[in-house]
């Protein structure tokens, strides 16, 4: 039969480059992508062969609000948060403190304390929604705290404060939330170098509740191509109300 003319390796590389796999076959291909450089090169070649097809996609001008959001997220997330957010100012102070301290678990504790102290001392008429925090610790024996995450529902953003050396090994760290026994939901790719305000898509904000787990996996450039973690889960921690 003609289909037999397609060698298995080629078939999987094609399927993966197209993005047509799902479920267990996808999981298997992803695993292979990390372990088999030859396979990864095949996938890259197919992606390159297919990429001229994007030429035929008609450009669509995005609304101007997108650039404003990108800019806000990247450049004003920590320095000039909305004036109404006392929390954000507190985080800014915590970040400065973080910068002034040596790396390590003790500085994480200091940041966590600073975050607690930084909550508004005089309650405003409307109580601000509770902050949630998680210490995301490495899943290996060392249990070193990799990053401290503080979720501010008022801003719809997680403030991420890395506390250890970058352990991403050139891969892309991706943040996940896991509620109970549900599948992990991607919160997007993150950075293990610098403190950052990481925006949470509106639809996922309700998932960030006390008891939910935040986890970090290492993914190929651009993040997991599948919607599920494909690389090793290097760190995890539980969100608790602070």
């Amino acid at each position, binding site marked *: 039969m*003609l*289909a037999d*003319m*397609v060698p298995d390796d*080629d*078939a999987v590389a*094609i*399927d993966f480059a*197209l*993005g*047509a*796999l*799902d479920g267990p076959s996808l999981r298997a291909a992803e695993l292979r992508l990390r372990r088999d450089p030859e396979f990864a090169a095949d996938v*890259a070649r*197919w*992606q*390159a*062969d*297919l*990429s*001229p*097809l*994007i*030429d*035929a*996609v*008609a*450009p*669509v*001008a*995005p*609304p101007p*609000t*997108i*650039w404003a*959001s*990108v*800019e806000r*997220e*990247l*450049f004003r997330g920590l320095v000039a948060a909305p004036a109404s957010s006392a929390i954000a100012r507190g985080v800014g102070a915590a970040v400065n403190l973080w910068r002034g301290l040596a790396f390590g678990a003790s500085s994480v504790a200091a940041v966590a304390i600073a975050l607690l102290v930084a909550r508004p001392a005089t309650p405003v008429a409307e109580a601000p929604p509770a902050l949630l925090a998680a210490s995301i610790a490495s899943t290996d024996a060392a249990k070193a705290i990799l990053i401290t995450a503080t979720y501010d529902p008022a801003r719809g953003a997680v403030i991420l404060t890395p506390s250890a050396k970058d352990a991403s090994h050139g891969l*892309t760290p991706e943040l996940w939330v896991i509620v109970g026994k549900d*599948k992990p*939901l*991607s919160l*997007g*790719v993150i950075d293990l170098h610098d403190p950052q305000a990481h*925006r949470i*898509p*509106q*639809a996922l904000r309700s998932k960030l509740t006390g008891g939910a787990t935040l986890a970090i996996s290492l993914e*190929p*450039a*651009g*993040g*997991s*191509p*599948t*919607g*599920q973690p494909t690389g090793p889960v290097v760190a995890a921690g539980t969100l608790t109300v602070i």
Partner: protein
Amino acid sequence: MSGALNVVAHLAGIAAGDRAALKHLYDATSAKLFGIILRILAERSEAEDVLQEVYITVWRKAAEFDATRASPITWMATIARNRAIDRLRARGSRPTTTLDLATEVVEPSPAADALIDTANDARRVTAALDRLDPRHAAIIRSAYYEGLTYEALAAREGIPIGTLKSWVRRGLIRMRGELA
């Protein structure tokens, strides 16, 4: 300087932390990437979220871009496709787009699109696909542009998944043969 070289220069600037370079890159590429994402996600608000994520990723990962291995737009388009497919799969049981694109003619690219350094390649790939069985070519295009799984495509086409897979794989191998 060609559009592609511009994009490479912007990426180098971004890797060095130049915010203006990111704005230039955004202006030069966002409409294209938004088009790619919208084909996969269709839902505008989701597509907007993903577009934003893509540029945040580009800002953080610009230093990893290797001009010797991929064209800049291919690199960015791969990030955009991956993020959009990621989001599509995360929808889980929610219905995917109901557009019947199997027979849809792909829009011609605007002549003035200086961004893409692959216009020539695009003509060759299109010509190679056009030499395949039209139905096979249409399915390959759907898989690529809409980010659909084999399972979803087979259901839509009303054919066994094994048949569909072999059409796609054999079609692409023939396409590559034509390109060589």
